[in-house]
């Protein structure tokens, strides 16, 4: 039964992938044949063949490595910054959510600033933060490039986690709260035994959003600080030579997407292990 459902899911995955490929190539073929230009002109520059993007991975880059290896290094660099930023952002976001949920006064006082923090364009904030951190000294020197980048990833991560943690903690069943009251449970006991478990589905929803946001944050952080070792640098680099080799940028996007999907799947797996709910009550 389990084997069959796995097979089924694998089959669906292959079918969806095939459908996507057919749409891409079909669009390209039809627009090139007819010469249609709406909504956009199709040529090797705007829409390269998918197989050419994949084949490009085997081509050498200016660094001497083949593209696939070069992108793998870049992806690992970005992944480290994104993962550390994600973890810090999640911890800070959770802690802030707990504090805001516990204290009514703080919620009204601090929440507007939490919201405001996310309305500042990340493109404007990232260079200030990443450059600023380059001039501080922690442990005898400025933090390394990827640490500074991870701060931006953390910045994009904490907000959804804070909002959903708060909402989740406040969503605990009123009867269950009365039950804890009747056991003369302390505030902390109620928090750990009732409110936090109640909030877990909400928190994991936020973590799934944050998982992909942290990758975007890391890439933007790298770009604004001119750190060239990660995917952000690769994107800037290949963007400059797009006219000559468009498939390089497409391949980079593929790696970035796979990294985001990887993060998402890790969170999904953690959710499956941690959250026990009736199937229909999973958020």
């Amino acid at each position, binding site marked *: 039964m389990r084997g069959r459902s796995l097979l089924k899911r694998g089959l669906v995955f292959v079918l969806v992938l095939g459908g996507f490929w057919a749409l891409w190539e079909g669009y390209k073929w039809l627009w090139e044949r007819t010469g249609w230009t709406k909504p956009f002109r199709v040529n090797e520059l705007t829409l390269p063949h998918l197989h050419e993007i994949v084949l490009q991975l085997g081509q050498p880059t200016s660094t001497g490595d083949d593209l696939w290896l070069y992108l793998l290094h870049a992806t690992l660099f970005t992944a480290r910054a994104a993962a550390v930023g994600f973890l810090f952002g999640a911890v800070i976001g959770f802690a802030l959510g707990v504090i805001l949920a516990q204290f009514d006064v703080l919620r009204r006082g601090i929440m507007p600033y939490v919201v405001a923090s996310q309305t500042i364009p990340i493109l404007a904030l990232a260079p200030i933060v990443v450059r600023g951190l380059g001039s501080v000294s922690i442990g005898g020197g400025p933090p390394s490039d990827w640490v500074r980048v991870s701060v931006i990833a953390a910045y994009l991560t904490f907000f959804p986690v804070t909002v959903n943690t708060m909402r989740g903690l406040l969503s605990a069943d009123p*009867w269950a709260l*009365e*039950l804890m*009251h009747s*056991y003369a449970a302390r505030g902390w*006991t109620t928090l750990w*035994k009732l409110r936090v478990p109640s909030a877990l589905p909400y928190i994991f929803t936020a973590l799934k959003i944050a998982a992909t946001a942290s990758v975007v944050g890391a890439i933007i952080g790298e770009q604004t600080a001119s750190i060239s070792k990660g995917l952000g640098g690769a994107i800037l680099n290949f963007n400059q030579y797009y006219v000559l080799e468009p498939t390089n940028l497409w391949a980079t996007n593929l790696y970035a997407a796979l990294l985001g999907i990887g993060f998402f799947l890790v969170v999904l797996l953690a959710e499956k292990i941690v959250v026990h*709910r*009736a199937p229909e009550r999973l958020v």
Partner: protein
Amino acid sequence: MSADGSSVVSITGLSKVFGKGGVKALQEIDLEVERGEFVSLIGPSGCGKSTLLRIVGDIVEPTEGDVIVNGKPARKARLDRDYGIVFQAPVLYDWRTVAKNIALPLEMLGWDRARRAERVRDMLELVELTGFEKHHPWQLSGGMQQRVSIARALSFSPALLLMDEPFGALDEMTRERLNLELLRIWAETGSTVIFVTHSISEAVFLSTRVVVMSPRPGRVAGVVHVDLSQPRTAATREEPRFFELVTEVRESLHATGADEVEETLAAEDEIA
């Protein structure tokens, strides 16, 4: 009803007003509950029977009057964990197994793992759910969930069991079976029970005493002593005395002056 040493609950001059100068929910309630008694509170919606239960359990504070439980104020009794509460819904924690749900109050009392496991085993036996300890609540039927809820409430042997329409959401068949089971548990544990219901027959079948309440403001309109022999069985429901008592409670309810008794009793979903 004297306030001698055997009294578990002693309520005097209790009133409750909701909001500033707002609705008078309860007025001048006096009630004694003796050790080992099974007392039902019955009445139409708005009679404040749920509110009364919640005041006894120190979930809601009274506006006036005293509630003494086991010789101490309700608040002290709650801090001493004298209450086991069962709500209309089972209120089980989805993320905990049946065994861990039952052990929840024991964890708070600081019982060690071995002692908890032993008590959980006893409780599962008591509510006849042995073999379901590893299940999660959503894998059980509504009736089984409510039995877990009862096991949890009794796990730490509280002095007083407060039940707020615990079987109100269940179908008639399940309800009658659980009525019998509750009586068996009550007899085995020697608990004192206060039980809110809007079913006349359920009140009569279960109770040693039925307290009839009238609405707006909520008052005690009458008390019916149920002298049906113990232990009660399915056959008890067919005894002539059972019907006489049901009639007595019904007439007492009608005497509260509420013409809407019938419909409100049928449709009641009281929210305190």
